[in-house]
């Protein structure tokens, strides 16, 4: 089993005619994801990547293809509008890859989504993959292996690093979820933890956080209360200076809060196996299994 995406997912890509959108849609199709269409306003009626229909609006796409998931590659100034359009059309799973959306746009998006049935993953994330079933996002597919470890992460390449270590040890993954590096994101650690706890195909969970905010603390308390599966954790940025934005918009220690040290302390206290070195993630998970 897996969470969020599988062979039944019917995917559209918003921004499918752009360079990135086209490339990664093709990669996802090659992996076996059921891509049913794409949306680029003004380019409705075209066909791309063989026989994939392009629509002007998400509503048209849903009506014609019964899509239930979307992958967004729309540039930052228009990405929040794309998320809202997907939610308005009733898409259940919205995965936004776009990096660089203004935070005030996301404040409005977050509020609007509360009143809908849509789940947003990201923005500024690598996407979601359930190995062997479907991939929605920009992660390199070949490093993954089907299995029973669930991964949740705020970082892209650090997730690949973890997956790489696991696969090298012969350990597969149920689903890997990149929740994104922005200060406002649609799906948080706790949301994914709840799904992994319920998923019978997930036997252990790996949670990769970083400096800034308090989402990892919130997750740690949630784990203590609700998660019975073993959880391994790592926080990137133990050596990061305060007050500086470390690449991700959300990775900043402000007012002495959101340090790696503090997060690791809380996580340990809540029963999570915290590794100090990112090179030990694979081995530690192996032991936990």
């Amino acid at each position, binding site marked *: 089993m897996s969470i969020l995406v599988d062979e039944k997912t019917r995917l559209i890509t918003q921004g499918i005619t752009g360079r990135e959108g086209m490339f990664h849609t093709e990669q996802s199709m090659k992996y076996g994801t059921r891509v049913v269409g794409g949306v680029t306003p003004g380019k409705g009626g075209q066909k791309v990547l063989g026989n994939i229909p392009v629509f002007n609006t998400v509503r048209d796409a849903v009506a014609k293809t019964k899509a239930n998931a979307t992958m967004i590659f729309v540039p930052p100034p228009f990405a929040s509008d794309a998320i809202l359009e997907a939610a308005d059309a009733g898409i259940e799973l919205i995965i936004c890859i776009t990096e660089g959306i*203004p*935070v005030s746009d996301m404040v409005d998006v977050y509020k609007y989504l509360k009143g809908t049935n849509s789940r947003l993953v990201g923005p500024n994330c690598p996407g979601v993959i359930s190995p062997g079933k479907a991939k929605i996002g*920009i*992660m390199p597919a070949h490093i993954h292996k089907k299995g029973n470890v669930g991964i949740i992460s705020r970082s892209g390449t650090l997730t690949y690093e973890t997956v790489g270590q696991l696969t090298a040890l012969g350990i597969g993954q149920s689903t890997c979820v990149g929740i994104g590096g922005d200060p406002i994101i649609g799906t948080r650690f706790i949301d994914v933890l709840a799904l992994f706890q319920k998923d019978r195909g997930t036997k252990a969970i790996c949670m990769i956080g*970083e400096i*800034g905010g308090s989402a990892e603390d919130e997750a740690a308390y949630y784990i203590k209360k609700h998660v019975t599966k073993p959880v391994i954790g790592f926080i990137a940025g133990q*050596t990061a*200076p305060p007050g500086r934005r*470390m690449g*991700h918009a959300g990775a900043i220690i402000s007012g002495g809060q959101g340090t790696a040290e503090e997060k690791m302390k809380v996580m340990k206290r809540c029963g999570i196996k915290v590794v100090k070195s990112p090179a030990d993630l694979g081995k530690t998970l192996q032991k936990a299994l």
Partner: protein
Amino acid sequence: MKIHEYQAKEILRKYNVAVPNGVLISKKSEAAKAARKVGTSVVVVKAQIHAGGRGKGGGVKLAKSPQEAEKHAGNILGMTLVTPQTGPEGRLVKKVLIEEGMSIAKELYMGILVDRETSQVLIMASEAGGMEIEEVAADTPERIIKETVDPVIGVQPFLARKIAFALNIEGAALKAVIPFIINLYDAFIKEDCSMLEINPLVITSDDRVLALDAKVDIDDNAMFRHKDTLACRDLDEEDPLEVEASKFHLNYIKLDGNIGCMVNGAGLAMATMDIIKLSGGEPANFLDVGGGADEEMIENGFRIILSDPSVKGIFINIFGGILRCDILARGVVAATKKLKIKIPIVVRMEGTNMEEGHQILKDSGLNFAIGSGMKDGAQKVVKAIK
């Protein structure tokens, strides 16, 4: 993006948020005239640098005459101002703001920010004005008022009143503070601020409400719709290497160590710094070359890392996804030859086209050390510079 106090106050004026009258000068000779123009018997001479705590470093002075204002301006302009926030190297003062003095009845704090817990905008206010809000939050959290703003309705008068009453504001000042809060929120939203802090917000003895100080950070992601604000960027306030890196869309942050790092992805870049430290070394920088790095970007990355004279070795840690290892390897070889790099370079590559990448490094005839994993790579570079 950080901006200066005088720039923040210009923005606030546009939104009818009351700020003191002031004149910006950059020469001592302009000070007396500026003080006369401001016109109050006492004026305040304020150094304009991005860091806070200016008063503690001698960057804010009261002057009782235009002559005294000139004297203070002369002392402050051109000084290297060291405050608790600048670090020991301090900042060069190039501009001074001369502002009206006033009789202050009450000093308050007001801040607006995006609260990550609720993912909504939060207004924070406190009667403990003029103090560091982090200290107030740690010592007396009950003295901080917090109100989350619903983005659909924004700050309505009732919410502003709620805050004003909680701050024990009365009389004529109460009437003035309501539009002040509403307009402040308006400025925050329309200017895409990521942080707006008025500390202190003052109530004068004649019941005026003013932003005596103003600290504004603008959301970097929103700069595309604020081209005018982009002109407020002061490159002198930033690290020259970081400014150089930003020209090439490289995400570089200078640190104090001696091992240069080049990594793809922010999370992996942070983790690489961490593992260098765990291996007994000190990272010289954070550098994320991103997913779309090409040969030119890699060369620029090298140049910037090497411009830091303390760098004694380089660790390249790449997990190829979109970024292919063969492209990276070609870039590394080309840059090493072109820049005639003599210090040790350790390369750890994994992911897409890893074998081709390693072959290119091998065939180059250059002496790269290869890390078989993050840990091995970090240990090798630490050892190489010892």
